[in-house]
């Protein structure tokens, strides 16, 4: 018996060694990962999303894909996010800001060879009204009363109310210009067609998309890169590791906790975008106990905003005053930030008939940082005032299907929007996403007034009143606005984050 074991062991150990050596040899044949050539495609890592046709874009990933293929009437350019005409050559308005005339740039061609004309702008706008498309812009452009073709390249819009900011609405990710003679319903997702800087060479949905430079792009010298490769990778950890390993060049969203680490690495550069992303804890004002403004105030007073910002978003952002208006806007009225006041919160709760505090369930998105951290920190802070918070964290798909607009208290991530657009969809009476079911006729009137006000100082004064109402009476606890970050390999230059999610890949180049 002993002999059997010895022999067998002996033979196979040698064999195993041989096998191991062969395996190592096989690996060596493949060799090390080759270094990236200067003209190799720039690899962008994005989470996969189903719909990539403008009008049906849902999140930032698809907006980035669209940004390479399509153009907008206007774009935000440069570090300072300068509002710049793109497909629009000029835009004029009457003294009242009610009649807008947009002239398109001549000599621009779509990828299918059609020349850009007023028909395309009208087609694109009409498409938002098609119920089968389900475009979120249908609600945004309701103010347009008529739209008429003036000449081959000019369209005139007549609005129901004056709107000095009308053009800003065309910055929306879904407002990219489509060509009127293309079958977007049948072909749009598989073979996209725009005027954009890149054309699609090969697209395998949810796996990868190869794009090459559009040689007839209407801006001379752009895009700078000859080719892009979008790799759809759903696991954020794989995205980060691939970037670190030099196997991906651009990652669109960098978690806060990696910012400091990557800033120290010479091989990786970090892009920071100051913008108005926020995570409101919204209370339903049509339900007890939050129909009582004293309870809402108590909920707001328990927050140590500085500590919240430092812990949930590593300090990358600005303190907020529950007022929805990002301090980066020129018309933002600078009001003092609320201080934490536990005693006052307790008093308000007692006055409202809750001397023993209240029990609150907050339903939040579990997978969008920093939502969950904000809610968990809130739970800690609120305890001292007798507000006992139960946290229910669910993934975004379930959140929007079951709790958004329905649950009593919710918290989710909101992207950057122009303040007036944001107010119009979030707190105005009956607004699409008025999750607090908040209604305040005075606020509605002020929003309408501010929308029509073209003078900056006057508008700022109106915003002072709007912000005060929202801060004192409004439906949400908004502790801070936070920045967003992207990361790229240090040798890849020119990637620009933009506030409207349509990040700009036209200036991206290697070396």
């Amino acid at each position, binding site marked *: 018996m002993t002999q059997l074991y010895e*022999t067998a062991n002996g033979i196979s150990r040698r064999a195993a060694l041989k096998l191991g050596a062969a395996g190592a040899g096989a690996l060596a044949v493949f060799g090390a990962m080759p270094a990236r050539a200067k003209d190799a495609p720039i690899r962008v890592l994005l989470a996969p999303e*189903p719909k990539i046709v403008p009008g049906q874009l849902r999140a930032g990933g698809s907006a980035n894909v669209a940004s390479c293929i399509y153009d907008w009437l206007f774009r935000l350019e440069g570090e300072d996010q300068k509002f710049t005409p793109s497909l629009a050559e000029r835009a004029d308005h009457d003294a009242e800001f009610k009649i807008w005339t947009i002239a398109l740039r001549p000599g621009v061609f779509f990828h299918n060879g059609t020349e850009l004309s007023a028909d395309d702008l009208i087609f694109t706008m009409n498409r938002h009204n098609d119920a089968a498309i389900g475009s979120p812009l249908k609600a945004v452009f309701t103010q347009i009363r008529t739209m008429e073709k003036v000449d081959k390249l000019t369209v005139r819009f007549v609005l129901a109310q004056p709107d000095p900011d009308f053009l800003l609405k065309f910055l929306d990710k879904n407002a990219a210009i489509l060509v009127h003679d293309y079958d977007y319903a049948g072909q749009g997702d598989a073979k996209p067609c725009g005027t954009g800087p890149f054309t699609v060479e090969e697209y395998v949905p949810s796996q990868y998309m190869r794009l090459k430079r559009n040689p007839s792009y209407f801006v001379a010298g752009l895009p700078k890169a000859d080719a892009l490769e979008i790799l*759809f*990778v759903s696991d954020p950890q794989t995205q980060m590791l691939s970037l*670190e390993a030099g196997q991906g060049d651009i990652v669109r969203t960098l978690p806060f906790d990696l910012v400091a680490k990557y800033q120290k690495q010479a091989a990786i550069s970090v892009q920071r975008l100051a913008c108005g992303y926020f995570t409101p804890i919204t209370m339903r004002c049509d339900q007890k106990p939050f129909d009582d403004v004293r309870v809402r105030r108590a909920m707001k007073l328990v927050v140590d905003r500085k500590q919240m910002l430092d812990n949930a978003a590593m300090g990358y952002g600005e303190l907020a005053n529950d007022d929805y208006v990002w301090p980066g806007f020129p018309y933002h009225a600078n009001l003092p930030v609320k201080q934490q006041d536990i005693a006052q919160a307790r008093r308000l709760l007692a006055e409202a008939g809750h001397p023993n505090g209240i029990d609150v369930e907050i339903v939040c998105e579990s997978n969008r940082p920093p939502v969950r951290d904000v809610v968990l920190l809130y739970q800690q802070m609120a305890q001292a005032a007798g507000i006992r918070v139960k946290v229910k964290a669910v993934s975004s798909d379930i959140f929007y299907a079951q709790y958004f607009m329905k649950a009593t208290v919710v918290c989710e991530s909101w992207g950057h929007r122009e303040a007036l657009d944001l107010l119009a969809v979030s707190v105005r009476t009956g607004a699409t996403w008025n999750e607090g079911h908040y209604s305040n006729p005075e606020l509605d009137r002020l929003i309408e007034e501010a929308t029509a006000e073209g003078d900056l100082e006057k508008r700022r004064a109106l915003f002072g009143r709007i912000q005060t109402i929202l801060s004192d009476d409004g439906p949400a606890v908004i502790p801070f606005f936070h920045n967003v970050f992207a990361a790229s390999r240090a040798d890849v230059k020119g990637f620009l984050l933009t506030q409207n999610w349509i990040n700009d890949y036209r200036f991206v180049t290697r070396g």
Partner: protein
Amino acid sequence: MLAYVIKRVLAIAASLLVASVLVFAIVQVLPGDVAQMILGRDATPESLAALRRDLGLDQPLPQRYGDWIAGVLRGDFGRAISIPGFPVGALIADRAANSLALAALASLLIVPLAIGLGTLAGLRPNGLFDRIVSVGSMITISLPEFASAIFLIILFAKVFPILPSMSILNARIGLGAQLHLLILPALTLSLISTGYVLRMVRASVIEVATSEQVKVATLTGVSPGRILFQYVLRNALAPAVTIIAMNMGWLIGGLVVVETVFAYPGLGSLLLHAVTQRDVPLIQGAALCSVGAYLVMNLIADLIYLGLNPQLRPA
């Protein structure tokens, strides 16, 4: 033997039918309204109604099941909602082929490694080698898949940059390059599976090597090599085959985590994609296909088992 195979194939068909009812029922009880889930926050009442009509959600349940299963029997799994313009059947076929390739490569690593190491360890139980193998396999089994995957990515893509961290296949590259993309996921899978199979082989080897039959053979002067191959391995392999085949089923249809980490376009990541996008036709098709893979692999395992153990064959 032929009758047995026919009986088993019929049983597989019946199981698939039951599975189809279960899959269909489970999809119906997924939390939330499917149309609402697909349209998300931007949903409007009109777009919801239009989508419900498109998806046939306005039809009664039995009719929806009937329509679906009738389509499946004709080979038509419907159209994917989340990957516009693609029939479910084509997507599944494409992904199943990728899964099969990964499963095959992983098995090429798992089977010889597990049988080799398991036999060596089992021939001298509690020896130094056995202890190293036992502890090592315990560690690889207990590590969650994503942890071993991330560990291997850090080791082979970052510290020693010789392998790609993402396994996104594409048709333009040659077979060698495709294989290169498969190595890390295959290694990850072999880390997990080798441990299981190896422990099974080791236990069988110990049992057979100490049996009367082997003792007699040794005493009657049969050569050690012959004893190892003819007596020990042949008998010890039979139980291991079942485990290997079960593993194959898992490798083809159940690799949700590993495929997602490596962004590998297999059946498992397709299923995950379908579930997160609430793509009902795709969930149903992919789930049914995974069940089918398990059943077929089990049948193959049983046939190999019978091949190795003639006395178990049905009359």
